[in-house]
């Protein structure tokens, strides 16, 4: 992302509406307009300073109905580290039974963000 850019338009992904936010940067200040609700402002601020995404993937499970258990990040995860997260989860294997919401990994890549099971298995 070009940090010299003062004005830019981004699409808010906080909800399915997809509002096109106009963003003006003035140093640390992020000015947002055209947002549908206040979550747009939060999203724009986050996107400018610390972009994050929810990440969902699978890990191997033994003794389950299926070979893979779907898992997800409890909160949005730093976007720049998603690939590292996916790589680290490739070596994770859990043992059935697992309950939905159960913590699979407490502190993913030292972000403090836990990885949760998406279902019972």
């Amino acid at each position, binding site marked *: 992302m070009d940090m010299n850019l003062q004005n830019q338009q*981004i699409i808010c992904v906080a*909800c399915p509406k*997809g509002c096109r936010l106009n963003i003006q940067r003035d140093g640390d200040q992020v000015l947002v307009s055209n947002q549908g609700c206040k979550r747009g402002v939060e999203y724009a601020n986050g996107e400018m300073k610390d972009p994050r995404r*929810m990440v969902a993937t699978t890990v191997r499970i033994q003794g389950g109905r299926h070979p*893979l258990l*779907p898992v*997800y990040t409890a909160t949005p995860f730093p976007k720049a580290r998603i690939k590292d997260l996916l790589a680290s989860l490739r070596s994770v294997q859990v043992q059935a039974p697992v309950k939905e919401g159960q913590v699979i990994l407490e502190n993913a890549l030292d972000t403090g963000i836990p990885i949760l099971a998406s279902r*019972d298995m």
Partner: protein
Amino acid sequence: MMIRKCDIAVIGSGPGGLAAAIAAKKNGAKQVLLIERDREPGGILLQCIHNGFGVEIFKKDLPGPAYAQHFINEAQEVGVNFLLDTMILEITKDKRIFASNKTEGMLEIQAKAVILAMGCRERTRAQVRLPGARPAGVYTAGTAQRWVNVEGFMPGKKIVILGSGDIGMIMARRLTFEGAKVERVLEIMPYLSGLMRNYVQCLQDFDIPLQMQHTVKRIIGNERVEAIETVAVDNRWQEVPGSEEVIPCDTLLLSVGLVPENELSRQVGIHLDPLTAGPFVDNYFQTETKGFFAAGNVVHVYDLVDWVTGAGLRAGESAALYTNNKLQMNNKKIAIQHGQNVHHVIPQFLDIDSLSAREEQLQMRVTKPLEQPVKVQVTDGKEVIASKALPYARPGEMVTISLKDKHIDLLKKAEQLVVQIAEREE
């Protein structure tokens, strides 16, 4: 042949069926049987491991399986009976359901009311008539999703995706996560067919190229896909000569639309709307065949699971009332037509008297993107009865408008309702 009896039989345990079964039980139906062809309940949500579910209902951003788990648990708590790994072969108008499974053989299920919640299916290569060879490596996005997320296999390494539907974009990201190279997403229309946020989170975030107004001209490879020849199209979908490009790849995924799955409805003789490919329904989600209700993607294809759950809850409640003879059956129903810029409206019939107890939501799809302020209007053909302003309207996102008790007097004078979307001066 074994015979089972129940008050309400729900066909399909996806989000629509789960919600319907729960609501039926909560509204006084005694025996509610939820019939599922797969070995576990949850429907397509089980393979939709991505986030984005539950934002409306739970105010949380959940993955599909977690969203399903919530309703599976609730259905079990309220005492819904599950009949899994069971395929329905035939349904008769007098609500006898013939099904088979491994443990009981052929079953006859006798119900007082039936809720259809079969969901939808993906359009296939043949339905969009893609030319070329017929090798392995051409799959619908949903089939690939099941393989990758549930069965644990990758369908290919270098992938082209046709169609910017939500599943297509979500699979582009998913396959990238698992190490495949998604070469391109092609969209024949000049606009996105899925949600904008999926474009941002699935394609833009991972630098996956999206080419609008492009399609597949030829599938190359006799045994396994070897390449895809693409071509640009103009605004009338005619190929632009000279724009051909050959993209080497081993897999073509198709995300070219969903169609309500109504083979069983057809068998019963339920009247289907050619616009939606789903049954005509009233605001109770009752079809035109008494005692048959329908909810979710079997009625029309939704973009959000939360709406499907909402429809299921209403259908379940209505079916429970029906079995207890409490559903208003004889009120005059007004027909709802689609007007300017509207592809179709659900429900197609409205019992105006029901508005005295609750507001009723009309759900619609626009025919083309309207990227400017618009107003959604319910009219009697001339006069506007209800109106709602929106900043824009897009085919990928369902549009709704609610009718309330304050509209009753105007509605009662109307012969029919027309729902339209007009451009608006700001």
